[in-house]
């Protein structure tokens, strides 16, 4: 195709050059001929004018000469008539008188002839009768003799002398009177105009040469070289025939090769000639031709150059367009141009998959049939057939830029078919359209994936919404239940004021129930923290043996209460000193153990073990196993066991009093700590949970960890500043601290606390317990003021925050204000004491 184009281009350039040259030759030939004709025509006119000028000048000259001659004739004739009359009057007019008359009248000679033309009288020494008879002829003389009115005047030029003769009738008798004058023809006067000098030195345009000849010699010319030459000699200077050519001009050339154009004309005995130099005549032609040729060549060069430039530009534009179209076309696997008049097609692009089927087809209907073959039999082909129908396209595309459809073929591919108008006639009728095919299987898949994702997102949102509603419903139930229990127990206690056993039982049940309530709130909070990613894991050292001991201690009590046997399987570990977040880990393992005890039956067992499975890169892997032979879980529940609020048997709620959050939190937290949890269970046979966890090995010696042993073990005698705005909480806290033997000073808000501290002696207070949210001045501001005081104990005194807010940011805020610890209500007095002692101990060391 490229080479075709190129050869076409070459052909067009060659054609253009051929046309340019041919047209040029024709044009130049035409111009040459026209200019030649024009020059010849001009020369003809010039020749005519010149010849006319020559003729006029010669005629004028001749007229002058003739006038002069005639004047002489008439003067002579008058004298002759007078003489004849004298003779008539005087019959004795004889020789002497005639002699005398001739002398007086300056007449050279006189003769009187009789009717026989014999001289009867004559001047002496002059010509006689023979001379006149010879000069005028007898016939003419006889006429004069015979007719009185007749006269004759004649000139004889001979040997440089001129003889004028006049003859009239003799008046007295038949005869003739003749006079003649004789003078030299040589002119010597300055004013005499002579023919030979007439054109001497004259300059004619176009380097013209003129000559006048009487046929024998050149009488006059403007060229000295021609003057005086005989006509033949003059002619011999030039070559060429002295006859007119086709153009009405005679063409001559001289020996030097110069060419001349001109003409000759015979007027009353003279031949006039005028010739003009060819180089002068054709000067204009030469110049015009030169200019024309140059202009023509330049014009064509410019034209060709422009064409090349325009073509190149067009080509570049076209190439760019083609590139654009090709890039756009790449989107489509198949492109078919279809004529709306008969459905005939031009295939512009064909995908490999349909190449064999479609290649040989020439009508869109045939191609449609191929598509039909590839169309699943079970799908409805009719809408597709209607879409393909080219006969209705003009109407369908009237107010649309394109039509599109998509379908799945038997190969399972999704095919998109677009029909766009391609060409319209001048009156807007649609002539051709493009059928554009595209494989959109991938797009479709993405679309389906997206749709399914969307669906699952909606499902999830619905589930979450349901879960939330469910959660609230359960909360109201789960919170209400223990509160009912507490209030019910208080009522029973009220009923038996003196029965100490009953009172104790009631208090014990209240404590248990409220503990459950606290658990529930803590769990919910933990869950929330986990879900929002707020959980902060500690990185503190701990001893695995102590850790397991504390777990076993609690578990044994719980198991005993539930009538379940708790089996300590012990620890198999190389590394005992570790760092991590023991609090969280303990909570979760305890949760598993609690569940194992809870969902057990009397006589069942719970076995707990801890085993180190390996260590690397400063970390040890542990496996905590909690196994029981309790009620187990059904297979279907196992799938949901780790979901929030999942409890297999709703009956179990009352029976086993769980929140349904434990396992969910455990799983989440274990995963947050980088571990995993596994479960094996069989309904009615028991459950086995395995927690795998990697923990950092503490490189410091265990000895350092043991220093709390040296601590003071009691807070008795310590002076504590208790700041609390809630009277009940104040009372509880004051009671608990005083119960442990501490001296308590109370303050109702932050300001009071600041004053109390200010007014105390330095070192008086060992401790400050500060509520955070208080009227007048909150705990944070109060702490900041205390810490800012200029006294020795201002910065050193431990200040513990007490708050019902268990969120992490609260803890951070209290630490930022200068507090040492953050305790959540309700206060765990043992934990508080331990913490106070830790601080006091630190201080002491």
């Amino acid at each position: 195709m490229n080479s075709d184009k190129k050869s076409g281009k070459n052909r067009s350039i060659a054609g253009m050059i051929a046309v340019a040259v041919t047209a040029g030759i024709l044009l130049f030939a035409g111009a040459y001929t026209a200019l030649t004709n024009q020059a010849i025509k001009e020369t003809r006119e010039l020749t005519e004018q010149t010849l006319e000028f020559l003729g006029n000048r010669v005629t004028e000259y001749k007229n002058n000469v003739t006038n002069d001659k005639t004047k002489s004739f008439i003067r002579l004739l008058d004298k002759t008539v007078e003489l004849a009359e004298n003779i008539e009057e005087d019959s004795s007019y004889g020789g002497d008188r005639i002699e005398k008359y001739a002398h007086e009248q300056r007449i050279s000679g006189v003769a009187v002839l009789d009717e026989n033309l014999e001289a009867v009288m004559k001047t002496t020494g002059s010509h006689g009768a023979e001379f006149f008879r010879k000069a005028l002829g007898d016939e003419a003389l006889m006429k004069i003799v015979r007719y009185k009115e007749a006269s004759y005047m004649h000139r004889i030029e001979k040997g440089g002398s001129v003889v004028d003769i006049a003859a009239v009738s003799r008046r007295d008798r038949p005869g003739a009177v003749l006079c003649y004058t004789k003078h030299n023809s040589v002119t010597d006067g300055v004013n005499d105009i002579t023919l030979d000098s007439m054109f001497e030195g004259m300059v004619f345009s176009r380097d013209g040469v003129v000559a006048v000849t009487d046929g024998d010699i050149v009488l006059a010319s403007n060229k000295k070289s021609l003057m005086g030459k005989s006509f033949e000699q003059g002619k011999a200077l030039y070559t060429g025939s002295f006859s007119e050519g086709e153009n009405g001009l005679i063409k001559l050339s001289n020996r030097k090769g110069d060419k001349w154009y001109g003409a000759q004309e015979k007027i009353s005995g003279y031949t006039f000639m005028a010739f003009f130099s060819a180089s002068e005549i054709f000067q204009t032609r030469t110049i015009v031709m030169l200019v024309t040729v140059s202009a023509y060549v330049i014009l064509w060069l410019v034209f060709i150059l422009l064409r090349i430039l325009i073509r190149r530009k067009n080509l570049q534009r076209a190439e760019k367009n083609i590139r654009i179209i090709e890039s756009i076309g790449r989107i489509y696997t198949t492109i078919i141009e279809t004529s709306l008049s008969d459905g005939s097609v031009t295939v512009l692009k064909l995908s490999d998959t349909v190449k064999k089927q479609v290649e040989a087809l020439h009508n869109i209907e045939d191609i449609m049939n191929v598509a039909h073959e590839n169309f699943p039999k079970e799908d409805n082909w009719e809408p597709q057939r209607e879409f393909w129908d080219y006969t209705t396209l003009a109407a369908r595309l009237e107010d649309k830029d394109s039509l599109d459809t998509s379908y799945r073929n038997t190969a399972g591919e999704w095919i998109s078919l677009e029909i766009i108008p391609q060409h319209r006639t001048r009156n807007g009728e649609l002539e051709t359209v493009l059928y554009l095919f595209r494989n959109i299987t991938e797009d479709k898949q993405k679309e389906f994936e997206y749709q399914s994702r969307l669906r699952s997102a909606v499902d999830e949102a619905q589930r979450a919404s349901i879960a939330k509603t469910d959660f609230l419903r359960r909360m109201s139930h789960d919170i209400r239940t223990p509160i009912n229990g507490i209030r019910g127990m208080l009522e029973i206690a009220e009923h038996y004021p003196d029965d100490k056993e009953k009172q104790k039982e009631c208090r014990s049940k209240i404590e248990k129930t409220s503990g459950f309530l606290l658990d529930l709130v803590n769990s919910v909070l933990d869950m929330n923290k986990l879900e929002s990613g707020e959980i902060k894991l500690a990185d503190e050292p701990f001893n695995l043996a102590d850790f397991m001991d504390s777990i076993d201690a609690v578990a044994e009590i719980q198991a005993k209460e539930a009538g379940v046997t708790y089996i300590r399987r012990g620890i198999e570990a190389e590394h005992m000193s570790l760092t991590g977040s023991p609090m969280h880990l303990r909570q979760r393992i305890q949760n598993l153990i609690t569940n194992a005890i809870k969902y057990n039956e009397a006589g069942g067992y719970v076995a707990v073990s801890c085993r180190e499975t390996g260590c690397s890169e400063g970390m040890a892997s542990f496996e905590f196993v909690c196994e029981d032979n309790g009620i187990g879980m059904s297979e279907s529940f196992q799938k949901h066991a780790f979901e929030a609020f999942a409890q297999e048997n709703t009956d179990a709620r009352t029976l086993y009093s769980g929140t349904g959050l434990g396992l969910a939190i455990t799983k989440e937290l274990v995963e947050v700590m980088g571990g995993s949890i596994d479960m094996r269970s069989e309904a009615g046979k028991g459950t086995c949970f395995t927690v795998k966890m990697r923990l950092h090995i503490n490189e410091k010696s265990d000895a350092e960890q043991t220093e709390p042993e040296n601590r003071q073990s009691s807070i008795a005698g310590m002076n504590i500043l208790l700041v609390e705005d809630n009277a009940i909480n104040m009372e509880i806290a004051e009671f608990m601290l005083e119960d442990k033997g501490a001296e308590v000073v109370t303050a109702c808000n932050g300001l009071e606390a600041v004053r109390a501290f200010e007014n105390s002696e330095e070192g008086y207070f060992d401790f400050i317990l500060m509520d955070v949210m208080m009227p007048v001045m909150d705990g944070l501001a109060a702490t900041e003021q205390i810490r800012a005081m200029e006294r020795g104990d201002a910065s050193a005194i431990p200040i513990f925050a007490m708050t019902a807010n268990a969120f992490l940011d609260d803890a951070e805020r209290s630490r930022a204000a200068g507090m040492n610890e953050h305790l959540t209500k309700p206060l765990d007095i043992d934990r508080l004491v331990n913490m106070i002692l830790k601080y006091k101990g630190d201080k002491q060391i």
Partner: protein
Amino acid sequence: MKKGKGIYTLILIMTIAMLCGCAQDTAETGSTAGLPQIIIGSYNYEPYNYINSGGEFTGVDVEIARAAFSRMGYEPVFKQILWENKDEYLEDGQVDCLWGCFTMTGRENRYQWTCPYLYSRQVAVVRSGSDIWKLSDLRGKRIAVQATSKPETLFLERKDKHIPKPEMVYSFSTMDEVYACLRKGYADAICGHESALNSLIKTSPENYRMLEDSLYTSELGVAFGKDYDSDFVSRLSEVLTEMKTDGTIADIAEKYGIDRQNVPEVTDK
């Protein structure tokens, strides 16, 4: 590309058209080669039969002969002969006919004549201011003529009563002298052949005037030998009649300074 081709074609066509236009200017009519020849005997007599500066026969008689024979399908060949020996040429068959301002008057029976094709007139010319208007006004006037010419004879012999008696007849050897005579006022009128005097008037029409009446009119014809093919002669007569009728002869005559009225009227036979 199509458009481009169109432009080239246009340029070509225009150029060719231009050339053709030029060629037409220089086109020549074809020769009459191959036609039977008719040899015409004549003598040099302007403006009837003479050789022009190009060496070609030309004149009133030449053109009429060419036109007539061309119509008949012959090619005329002109031959200048010694006019005195004209009868011998005819008898020998060296010429087919005599055609050179040849006056029929007085020679009617000596030859086989065609119909007259032109009149030859002798006229008088005066100066514009002259009070001579008619022939009779020439009475007692000085008249210049060429010696031995028809007018000289007319005025001297005065056989025709229309010709008045002049005071004097000035005879000159050449017409130039006759013209000078009128120019300078030496003569009141000059007389001569119409075509010659017309050429004088043409040189300065404002100065001269030709009298309407002619002095003498003769009929010009084409003379063949007595035993020449009479059919041919009558066919030539027919053609000449045709040419008189259609104005061909008048057009030719006018070109050479001869009035159209010199073409004889065609009368029914």
